[in-house]
């Protein structure tokens, strides 16, 4: 029996979902977003499991097959030291992905909280600190990263923290702008009138509302960080050889590009699929949350 009362019941149950479920359902409808998510998951699984599933030893140098074209044994060929490109490409994202994910988390946490606090406090503190942020943003960061890393050395924690810190500065502006939308709303006034502490207002009232902007911003930042990290790595400030890394692999093999293009295409393909995946996902994610891409993107 499908009565109107039943369909009425159905209509009310549709409306009774939590925002998280709602977002997921919206996301699932986007084909591009799901493709992006699959690409990201693929890369994450690969980063976690690659040491155990590699077809060849990525460190083994074979003088007999140097700069060799793809064959049955080496499906992407070998580099100039005779190492298997396919295995090295699969393994080459591990450090990059771990470092950039950790720095993304650092960036949205410190940048996000600072931004929300500044937006909430307003006044002189906000004025002064935002001018400092503006000044910091005018510095060419790749250069600064190079300097910091060359002083402190290519240690993973150094890279993670410097990346997290620098990209967090971008997030401050995004989080502050998103917060300004909410600070004058009545539920914030209500919380202030209740006598809530500033910390509670920021964490319990503002944070849940700004979180979606921060998450999208984090996803965008992640893809930017991947590119920056790979650039550093290309310049030799990323990963200590012989650990394979996409950026460094491209640097190592660019001279043999004409005779063994796969030695560069392999890592490039891996990097680009991950970045395309992140971009497709963050786009669809922002739409699913009801945000515009321009709102979540770093300026």
């Amino acid at each position, binding site marked *: 029996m499908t*009565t*109107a*009362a039943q*369909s009425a019941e159905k209509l009310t149950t549709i409306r009774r979902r939590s925002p998280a479920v709602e977002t997921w359902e919206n996301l699932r409808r986007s084909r591009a977003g799901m493709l992006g998510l699959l690409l990201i998951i693929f890369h994450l699984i690969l980063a976690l499991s690659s040491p155990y599933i590699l077809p060849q030893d990525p460190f083994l140098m074979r003088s007999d097959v140097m700069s060799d074209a793809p064959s049955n044994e080496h499906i992407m060929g070998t580099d100039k030291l005779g190492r298997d490109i396919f295995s090295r490409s699969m393994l080459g994202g591990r450090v990059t992905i771990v470092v950039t994910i950790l720095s993304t988390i650092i960036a949205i946490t410190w940048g996000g909280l600072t931004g929300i606090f500044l937006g909430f406090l307003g006044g002189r503190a906000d004025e002064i600190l935002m001018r400092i942020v503006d000044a910091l943003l005018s510095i060419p960061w790749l250069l600064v990263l190079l300097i910091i890393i060359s002083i402190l050395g290519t240690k993973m924690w150094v890279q993670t923290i410097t990346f997290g810190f620098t990209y967090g500065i971008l997030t401050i502006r995004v989080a502050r702008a998103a917060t300004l939308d909410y600070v004058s709303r009545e539920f914030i*006034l209500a919380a202030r*009138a209740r006598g809530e502490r500033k910390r509670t207002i920021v964490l319990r009232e503002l944070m849940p509302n700004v979180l979606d902007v921060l998450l999208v911003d984090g996803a965008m930042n992640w893809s930017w960080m991947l590119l920056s990290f790979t650039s550093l790595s290309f310049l030799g400030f990323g990963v200590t050889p012989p650990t394979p890394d996409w950026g460094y692999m491209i640097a190592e093999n660019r001279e043999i590009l004409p005779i063994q293009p796969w030695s560069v295409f392999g890592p490039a393909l891996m990097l680009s699929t991950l970045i395309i995946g992140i971009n497709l996902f963050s786009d669809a994610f922002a739409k699913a949350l009801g945000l515009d891409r321009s709102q979540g993107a770093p300026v």
Partner: protein
Amino acid sequence: MSNLLVDVNNLTIGYHNKMGELVHVLRDVSLQIKPGETLGLVGESGCGKSTLGQAMMGYLRSGSMVVGGTAQFEDTEMFSLTDRQLEAVRGNQIALIPQNAGQSLTPTMRVGKQIIETLRLNTDISKDDANKRMLELLGQVRLPHPEVMAARYPHELSGGQQQRVAVAMALAGEPVMLILDEPTTGLDVTTQAHLLELLCEIVTDTGAAMMYISHDMGVIARVSDRVAIMYAGEIVEDASSADIFNLPAHPYTRGLLESIPRLAIAGIPYSMPGQPPIPGVLPGCAFAPRCSFVTDICTSEPPTLDTIPEKPHWVSCHLWEQVIETDFSQELQDVFHTIKHKTTDENSIDISDLEITYYRADLLDRLRNTLEPPSTVSGVTFSVQRGETLALVGESGSGKSTIVRTISGLLPAKGGRIQFDDCDLTVNVADRPMHTCKRVQLIFQNPDASLNPRHTVAEIIDQPLKLYFPEMTRAERRERQIELLDRVRLDERYRLRYPGQMSGGEKQRVAIARAFAADPELVLCDEPTSSLDVSVQAAVLDLLADLQNERDTTYIFITHDLAVVRAFANRVIVLYQGRLCEVGSVDEIYSPPYHPYTETLLDAVLEPDPSTRPKLIAKDIPELTPPAQGCPFQRRCLKNIGEICDSEIPPWQTAENGKEHKIRCHIPMQELLANQESVLPV
């Protein structure tokens, strides 16, 4: 050619929801408008009235579609026209005046130029002629000094003036049909009364037909010859204005009329139970679950639009014959019930000589030694007794919200004292001890904005509990949440809902529950019912009254609606530009003598009765800052007696009709009394 201007027949409009199901917005709507007729279209939020108005212009919201039926304008089917053809009809023959005209004007262009642009878009008129016509139009909408006004930018005009410019633009194409979608919502009562007057004059002058869409029965009564009532996407009753207001034949129309607070009848009106269903989900009459006449046939068979014999009166109800037999005017008297106020002699809050300013001198001002402008609120002195409801009344800009924000500690006071029992409330909320914060709670106007959209109801109510009762365990708090929800008449299943999943009335109940979670002694209510539909307004007022009686809570109640004040408050303060004009008990305030400003407000109230008409006794000039000296109302007052009003602050005079009734005016009490009629029926 038929003699109808608009002919909508069996129009059904719907959209597909996310699950792919067809959801109706309009169902089988038929509506005819003759040339020169003024039709009022009434309904609560979400009933489809705006969709119908837009459909008449051939416009559908994106995602919506015509499922069946036709919408003809001058014998042309609007939905068969191409975009280009529609463009020619819109503006030239039908014009729409939207709710928020300020936002529909281009902010970077002088208003005169915008009107000229509209004129030249539709006709090939020369520049000079267009300019002449533009000034004519501004004159037609009664804007003083059209040349000056034309050179202004939209932000330099007040809300009422912007709305007048929008009307002028709509008139540019000399339309035969005007569609007005709540054009006065958000305007002050006096501005609204003036604008409605203007619209009526325009309709008479130009002979255009008008469809006026509104939720406000008082406004509809003022402007329309005929009224159509919409409920859940259907037209349930369609009759002459007099019939709708005096002999309503549909139970919903009756309920709607009975739920409006009135100046003429003291007490809280009827509150309709439940809320409207989604159109088309109920097998029978959509109103059946909320109807007091309901019988078996109502829940099984949909009613059809019947004609009441010998009248142009259509009603969609199985039982209309039974409905019209019950005497409406008697029923109306009976549904109102007065609330009992427990009055005590104990003072709860004492405010003396309160002064508040938003002005902050910056460096440049200090260097230049700029004179400080008059304070936003000045010389406000009053006290409220425990368990009493004090209403602060005034138009926007009267300082009523400012006072309440200062009491709650969100704004600093520049001078004066706020004493609440033994606590000093002059200090900022951050510097108040927690037990003081707990005693004073706020309820805001718009529950959409005052509830955090990311929190569930449980989290919302939990916040004050955690803050004020840190000793409570999680289980105790949960129990208390359920108890509070029960006190505001909500089921405990609401705990897990988000604000977006509730209706306006339900959200306001949650906001009330949050305020009462603190177990407060003083609750500041900032227009708590003005954003709600009339059918739920009375229920919220009832609820507030009940909660007050349980613990002798004191209310300070802000509103601009004098009928609500009469229903709910027991003492009233009338404010203008942050200065006191009149104080007294409700009965005293509503009978003469009145302060000239109070008289203006009372006369601008639109009662849902087509036989009454506002008198418009004050000038409709917007004022942004209080005058530097003299009476705050001097510039708008028609009774201004000259020099003394402009230079000296008027003295308090005690009226003879009550011991608490005081009026601040230079005109002697006897003279005021002699020229005023009571707004209440004798």
